[in-house]
């Protein structure tokens, strides 16, 4: 059975057997990487010799720490899923498209293409949701389709060739931290490169002689100097965007431009710049919805009833359906641990005041102390489960729980 990454239909490049994803063309990314790595190596190997002795050994240590942090952020931005929304299954596409007004010819004989917009009220503001015919889904507000990668990306910011990937919801914080850390690092390298040259020229009593003796310093200073302008500029721009809770894409389109549309509000704004910063940079991280490491189980087709050696059709159907639902039960564990001993305390703060009128909803999930507790009308636990079906379901669950694999980590 093929894995999902093997049948991925978009134009992004899938690497490491589904663990990483990036744009197809990485040539500019390699340039970025080369500039950073080569300049850093030259700085650490040549400039730091004098600086460590004359000033302090912490100078190269701090440089190395910053270099590693910059690389981590860059590689995370490049190789993680930016928030790609998986394409709709054929059944979903059929359902949505059956509801859309088809292409029509009006009274004047003019062709009208199929209508694919619907209005949605979000916190008092009307948004137009678009149906993406490529991805077969209603694009969430703030999502956009990247033509380079041929995917719909949630909270799409822009496609960055320097980083070799789209910047979207999942990797925006890594991109921003890359910009900020690179700005600081460029400044650090430039300053200490100049300090190195000054120290050398003091020793040799001739600045030109110092430059000839340490040509790599000149090179690193120049690279850092020219990089600073663009990196710091972009970092400042993104700082402003984060404080306003806007993406580059929305800024370009002027979606929340209050000068053009004074009565326009940004419904995603948390109120103040600091709250927006905290949410964007340190807020919850969506896991990758692509689930590349899982088996492709024919998602498009309907589940057909399979009769199985004297078991009744109901049991087999329940088993077939839970084969689809049971597998994800261990998906979100990166370690091979049994689902049952997972702590559910983290979800304990969800308020459990939902009242259920019918008695067929469970009072409590099995094995969970603190999950959402659904109270029955009469407080009784659930009954009325299919006899025999439960055993098949239980068997299916235990089989899939014991077989967890390493999952997509980016």
């Amino acid at each position, binding site marked *: 059975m093929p894995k999902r990454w093997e049948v991925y239909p978009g134009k992004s490049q899938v690497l490491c057997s589904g663990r990483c994803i990036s744009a197809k063309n990485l040539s500019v990314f390699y340039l970025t990487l080369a500039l950073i790595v080569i300049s850093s190596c030259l700085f650490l190997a040549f400039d730091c010799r004098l600086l460590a002795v004359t000033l302090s050994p912490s100078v190269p240590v701090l440089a190395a720490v910053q270099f590693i942090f910059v690389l*981590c952020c860059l590689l995370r931005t490049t190789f993680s899923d930016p928030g790609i*929304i*998986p394409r709709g*299954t*054929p*059944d979903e596409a*059929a*359902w949505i498209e*059956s*509801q859309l007004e*088809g*292409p029509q010819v009006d009274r004047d004989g003019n062709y009208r293409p199929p209508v694919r917009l619907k209005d949605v*009220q*979000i*916190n008092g503001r009307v948004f137009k949701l678009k149906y993406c015919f490529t991805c077969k*889904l*209603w694009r*969430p*507000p*703030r999502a956009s389709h990247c033509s380079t990668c041929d995917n719909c990306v949630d909270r799409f910011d822009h496609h960055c060739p320097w980083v070799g990937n789209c910047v979207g919801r999942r990797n925006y*914080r890594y991109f921003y931290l890359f910009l900020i850390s690179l700005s600081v690092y460029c400044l650090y390298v430039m300053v200490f490169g100049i300090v190195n040259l000054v120290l050398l020229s003091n020793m040799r009593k001739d600045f030109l002689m110092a430059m000839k003796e340490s040509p790599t310093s000149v090179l690193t200073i120049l690279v850092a100097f020219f990089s600073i302008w663009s990196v710091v500029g972009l970092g400042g721009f993104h700082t402003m965007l984060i404080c306003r809770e806007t993406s580059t894409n929305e800024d370009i389109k002027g979606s929340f431009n209050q000068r053009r549309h004074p009565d326009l509000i940004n419904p*995603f704004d948390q109120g103040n710049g600091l709250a927006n910063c905290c949410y964007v*940079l*340190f807020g*919850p*991280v*969506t896991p990758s*919805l692509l*689930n590349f490491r899982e088996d492709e189980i024919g998602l498009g087709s*309907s*589940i*057909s*009833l399979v009769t199985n050696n004297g078991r009744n059709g109901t049991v087999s*159907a*329940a088993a077939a*359906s*839970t084969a689809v*639902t049971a597998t994800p*039960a261990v998906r*979100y564990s*990166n370690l091979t641990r049994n*689902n049952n001993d*997972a702590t*559910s305390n*983290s*979800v304990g703060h*969800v308020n459990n005041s939902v*009242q*259920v*009128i*019918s008695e*067929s*909803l*469970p009072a409590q999930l*099995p094995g*969970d102390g603190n999950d*959402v507790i*659904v109270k029955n009308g009469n407080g009784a636990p659930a009954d009325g*489960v*299919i006899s025999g079906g439960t055993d098949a379901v239980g068997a299916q669950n235990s089989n899939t729980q014991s077989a967890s694999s390493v999952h997509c980590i980016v």
Partner: protein
Amino acid sequence: MSSSKPLPNSSSATILPPANKAFVPRDYSHGTELRFSTELPAKLQGRIPEEVFTAVIGNINQLLIAAETGSASVYLESCFACLTGYLAYICMETQYEKCLRSVSRLVEEYNRTVFGPRNLSMIDPSERGLRVIEIVLLRP
């Protein structure tokens, strides 16, 4: 049991939705937070009481909305991950992943107790990229 109809290519042909599946779309009226519509799909009328369906979707929505809420523990977790250069994510499970796992378990439980007896099967929304909740009608 009818299978899904093939999509015809010509623009003049009608596209038929699958007869044995009902879809619950996302509800964006409160913003981009994770929430599914609590409106009972037409195909499920008569198969499941509306208040049960609304309560089921409501419970799932509560877990999903909690996943996207920025709480103190979420911020601390992200700060810690940032300080380790995001290498901590290799061995750490995020709050969001824990919430989605709870949703998976809740869906399994509902399949066992609510949907199974009514010959319905709910597909975990994570299996559908959080686009829709798919409910399969096992028997017409």
